[in-house]
């Protein structure tokens, strides 16, 4: 063998060795990546499932209707206006400003009862799940003092926080309820602990499954009112009678 061809043969062996090395190194790298990713996935799943376990149990309120609504007015009224709303939803605030007084008037003279169903579909719009916390506060207030609920409800929309922020704090929610006249020793802990968060989640699920696609959804005896202005509401209520 000439010197030259010897060198060539050596180089070829070295190259093959290099390829082999590279192959096994790639395998090691793949293995390490797979193990680490699997570890991250397991940790991720365990945290996620722990989070969802948190919403599996919870208290059931007694002051609400079978549909999870807070009924204002004559309990056995012939005409029931149902308002599905989210305390974070700007359109709900507009609805309250536009038609809230009309509903209060009609409730006051016993023409109708109003079922307010607070749901939480806009938790993403705040960094603190404000929708759920506000709806929970609604049930806390209903449990503590039904008479204070309408003015509390009005105050909540008047002080609605902007979307994309941190929402109102628990202390602010408690303050609004106290200003509305709720005087209960359990109010603060009910709001702080989120006692009815799970109930709100369940109600939200049920309401969405029933075909509600957004808030506010206003219906009269089960029929959705397309134009929930004061006039539109009065017409729909008159028709339902």
């Amino acid at each position, binding site marked *: 063998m000439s010197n030259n061809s010897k060198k060539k043969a050596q180089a070829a062996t070295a190259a093959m060795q290099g390829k082999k090395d590279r192959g096994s190194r790639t395998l090691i790298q793949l293995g390490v990546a797979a193990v680490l*990713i699997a570890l*991250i996935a397991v940790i991720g799943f365990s945290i996620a499932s722990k989070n969802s376990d948190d919403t599996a149990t919870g208290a059931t309120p007694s002051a609400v209707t079978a549909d999870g609504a807070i009924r204002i007015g004559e309990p056995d009224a012939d005409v029931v206006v149902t308002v599905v709303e989210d305390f974070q939803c700007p359109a709900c605030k507009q609805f309250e400003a536009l038609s809230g007084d009309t509903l209060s008037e009609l409730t006051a003279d016993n023409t109708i009862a109003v079922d307010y169903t607070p749901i939480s579909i806009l*938790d993403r*719009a705040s*960094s603190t799940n404000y929708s759920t916390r506000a709806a929970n506060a609604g049930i806390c207030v209903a449990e503590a003092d039904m008479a204070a609920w309408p003015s509390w409800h009005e105050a909540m929309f008047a002080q609605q926080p902007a979307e994309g922020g941190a929402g109102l704090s628990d202390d602010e929610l408690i303050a609004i309820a106290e200003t509305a006249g709720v005087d209960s020793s359990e109010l603060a802990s009910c709001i702080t602990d989120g006692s009815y968060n799970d109930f709100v989640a369940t109600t939200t699920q049920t309401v969405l499954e029933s075909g509600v696609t957004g808030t506010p959804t206003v219906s009269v005896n089960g029929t959705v009112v397309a134009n929930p202005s004061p006039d539109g509401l009065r017409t729909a209520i008159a028709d339902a009678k």
Partner: protein
Amino acid sequence: MKPARATAWVLTVGGFLGLLAALALTIERIELLQDASYVPSCSLNPVLSCGTVMTTEQAALFGFPNPIIGIVAFTVVLVTGVLTLARIALPHWYWLGLTLGTLLGAVFVHWLIYESLYVIGALCPYCMVVWAVTMPILVVALSQLVGNSRVGGLFVEWRWTILAVWYAVVIAAIGIRFSDYWATLVP
């Protein structure tokens, strides 16, 4: 060290995708300014919502929309990728500049990921394209910069593993943060 082919391709494709996403975000922002009721093409639901994210303060950290930075920066990355594909040798200091720039970009992107997940609470699909391309661009730029040293060689060897784990961490964070939303997608 001659750049690996993979480096050239990652820079070209990553730069191109990043540029597209930054352009889309800028155009959507302008549409939104002209018509406040405009719904961006990537606002699909409360979780996947460019509109929510684009209108936050974080989306214009320096007083103007962030994607304008992206248009300039990803153009540089794209051009670098094309030059490298054409086998044009770039000096060491050029790669240093590219790596430092990309490092700043990556820091910024991770701050945005944090804000998007834990403060804003919504995901913006076009922004996520930018997140996804910034990581490999940093990895290949750094590889090219440090590839000649001993420690650097080790980094180059493990770069795809590092990238994969890095992706996994970000995906896991997104998965956990919005787990109840993802759960609704599974029947």
